[in-house]
């Protein structure tokens, strides 16, 4: 009798490379390479992530039935050739710069993969999906829906930049696509870069900046930069962009349109930047709404699945939900390129092996196949204690209940607590296993966590994690948001009036609600709901917190500092802990207080990177 089918999915070479292992269609493990290499958004071949997946699945490369890569190199390469040819001789410098890596590893990916996985049997096929096929598969197959409309939207794959598709049980079909260079993702990235943030990682900052501004440039964008069609497709006016010809996203003409040159990284944030951020956010939301509406018209289905980098724009996701275009919405938690590894593997499982899906249940949207996105490595208490001992850490071991009580006491005393438990999350968000927690009721928590713990920009809001059954008490959100991918308003009863006359970033100083640390200046919050089934340990902590304080909400931010990936191992966690002003750490069964730790310097494994 044949054994189970093992499929390894890989994504690499653009940003956030990752690996994912399936066993008979069920996700065994998935992780991004950056967590192991400690290089943020690492795009290198995911060697460490791949090794972790095989180790976790207790299999050798020879036992794999297939490796699937998340895009088609020949198609992508010829798209680049055609694009550069169309603008030649402009762009030759960029083109010459990318050729060596294409010829040495990206084009003949079968050879690259066999070189990187030496024990791979020659009979193991190496397969390829199209980029947006992988995104669509990652959006639909793990979703709780039997059938659903699918929208994928990112910068660019091979040619497609946006697709509308249809998923029915184990089949998936892409019905429509928008092609490069016309791309909502590239448009948003162009503004990200213009406002001084890094492309492919700073989009979140632009979204966080938007509520401070006014949509002064919305008409300018829609009149001069793009043609936004009724079906949600976005056609760029290439006279304003430089990504085909040069090394930057935008050109002089673009800069003139928005009143000045791009903001340099770390430069002062002016009123103009706030208004630009708000304007592009408004346009993006409108484009996503139109796309969703068109997907509903084309498919006639009441459910929608989303993936692709633009699906991480949780403000736009919240609007799609509130507009009531679909009865239910499910967003792949690893919506960016990392999730492509999962999608590629799932696409192969259902198409080549005709494998079944788990048990999608339309009536229970929380019954997805993502295992709460907790798909990364976990560490035993023995392994954690070994790591702490190596660093000479001062720690105490507690039983489960005592640990919860200790953490709650710290939180109630306005202390900032590192929380490292169980398996690491897959995708960009920390969902309560590699998190930093705080009291959302504290007026000083936001600036304290931003400036002293995370060392990041003070304007960035924090996300609340709330007990699922209490979410509606605090937020205007009726549905679950297990992956922190929906933004919803805080309940009016909890809001506080903001002093008149405050504008721009000055609004940050005002206490806006009873939960000031998680209330953005527009009274919105990026919500994570937690059920017992989803994450029992975090659920117990929130229960204990609610019993002690009457509040069912905590601040949840990722366990890292600006410029480094989320921590993966106990060693990463301890190094991060002692290099910040975090007050305490709960790691496995151990608790540590910052003040009790040895004063000697413990360096990071990899220096902080530009963010």
């Amino acid at each position, binding site marked *: 009798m044949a054994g189970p089918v093992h499929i390894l999915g890989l994504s690499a070479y653009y940003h956030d490379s990752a690996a994912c292992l399936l066993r008979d269609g069920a996700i065994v493990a998935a992780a991004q390479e950056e967590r192991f290499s400690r290089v943020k958004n690492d795009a290198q071949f995911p060697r460490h992530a791949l090794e972790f997946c095989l180790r976790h699945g207790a299999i050798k490369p020879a036992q794999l039935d297939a490796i699937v890569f998340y895009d088609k190199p020949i198609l992508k390469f010829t798209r680049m050739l*055609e694009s550069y040819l169309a603008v030649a001789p402009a762009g030759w410098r960029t083109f010459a710069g990318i050729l060596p890596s294409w*010829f040495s590893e990206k084009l003949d990916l*079968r050879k690259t993969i066999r070189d990187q996985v030496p024990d791979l049997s020659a009979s193991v096929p190496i397969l390829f999906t199209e980029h947006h096929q992988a995104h669509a598969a990652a959006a639909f197959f793990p979703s709780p829906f039997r059938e659903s409309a699918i929208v994928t939207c990112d910068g660019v794959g091979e040619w497609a930049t946006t697709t509308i598709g249809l998923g029915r049980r184990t089949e998936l079909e892409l019905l429509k696509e928008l092609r490069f260079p016309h791309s909502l993702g590239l448009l948003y990235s162009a503004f990200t870069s213009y406002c001084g943030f890094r492309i492919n990682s700073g989009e979140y900052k632009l979204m966080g900046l938007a509520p401070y501004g006014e949509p002064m440039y919305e008409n300018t964008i829609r009149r001069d930069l793009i043609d936004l069609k009724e079906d949600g497709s976005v056609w760029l006016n290439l006279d304003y962009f430089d990504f085909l010809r040069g090394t930057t996203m935008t050109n002089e003409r673009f800069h003139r349109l928005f009143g000045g040159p791009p903001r340099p990284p770390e430069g002062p944030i002016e009123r103009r930047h706030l208004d630009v951020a708000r304007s592009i956010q408004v346009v993006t939301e409108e484009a996503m709404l139109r796309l969703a509406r068109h997907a509903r018209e084309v498919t006639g289905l009441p459910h929608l699945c989303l993936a692709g980098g633009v699906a991480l724009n949780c403000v736009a996701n919240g609007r799609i939900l509130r507009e009531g275009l679909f009865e239910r919405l499910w967003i792949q938690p690893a919506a960016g390129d990392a999730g492509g590894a999962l999608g590629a593997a799932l696409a192969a499982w259902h198409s080549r092996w005709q494998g079944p899906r788990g048990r999608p249940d339309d009536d229970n949207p929380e019954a997805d196949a993502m295992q709460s996105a907790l798909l990364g490595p976990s560490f035993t208490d023995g392994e954690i204690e070994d790591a702490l001992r190596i660093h000479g850490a001062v720690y105490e071991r507690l039983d489960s209940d005592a640990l919860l009580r200790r953490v709650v006491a710290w939180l109630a005393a306005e202390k900032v607590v590192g929380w490292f438990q169980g398996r690491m999350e897959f995708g960009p968000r920390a969902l309560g296993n590699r998190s930093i927690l705080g009291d959302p009721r504290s007026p000083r928590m936001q600036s304290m966590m931003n400036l002293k713990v995370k060392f990041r920009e003070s304007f960035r809001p924090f996300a609340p994690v709330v007990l699922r059954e209490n979410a509606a008490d605090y937020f205007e959100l009726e549905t679950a948001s297990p992956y922190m991918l929906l933004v919803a308003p805080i309940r009016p009863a909890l809001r506080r009036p903001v002093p008149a006359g405050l504008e721009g970033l000055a609004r940050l100083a005002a206490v806006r609600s009873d939960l000031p640390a998680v209330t953005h200046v527009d009274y919105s919050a990026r919500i994570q709901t937690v059920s017992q089934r989803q994450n029992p340990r975090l659920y117990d902590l929130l229960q204990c917190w609610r019993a002690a304080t009457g509040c069912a909400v905590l601040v949840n931010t990722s366990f890292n500092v600006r410029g480094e990936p989320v921590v993966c191992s106990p060693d990463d966690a301890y190094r991060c802990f002692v290099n910040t002003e975090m007050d305490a750490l709960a790691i496995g069964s151990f608790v540590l207080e910052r003040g009790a730790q040895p004063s000697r310097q413990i360096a990071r494994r990899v220096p902080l990177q530009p963010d």
Partner: protein
Amino acid sequence: MWALLKEFLVFLRQEKKWWLVPLVVLLLGVGALLIFGTSSGIAWALYPFM
């Protein structure tokens, strides 16, 4: 490498993009010169032109 070449030919036939062939051959030639021209036995043939 042969599998890649075969796939490329299939792709060209499917997409009817034969016009890419001279471009790719040219690029491969330039690429080969750049790679081998720096440290191999054909360097002598390149330097007189530079």
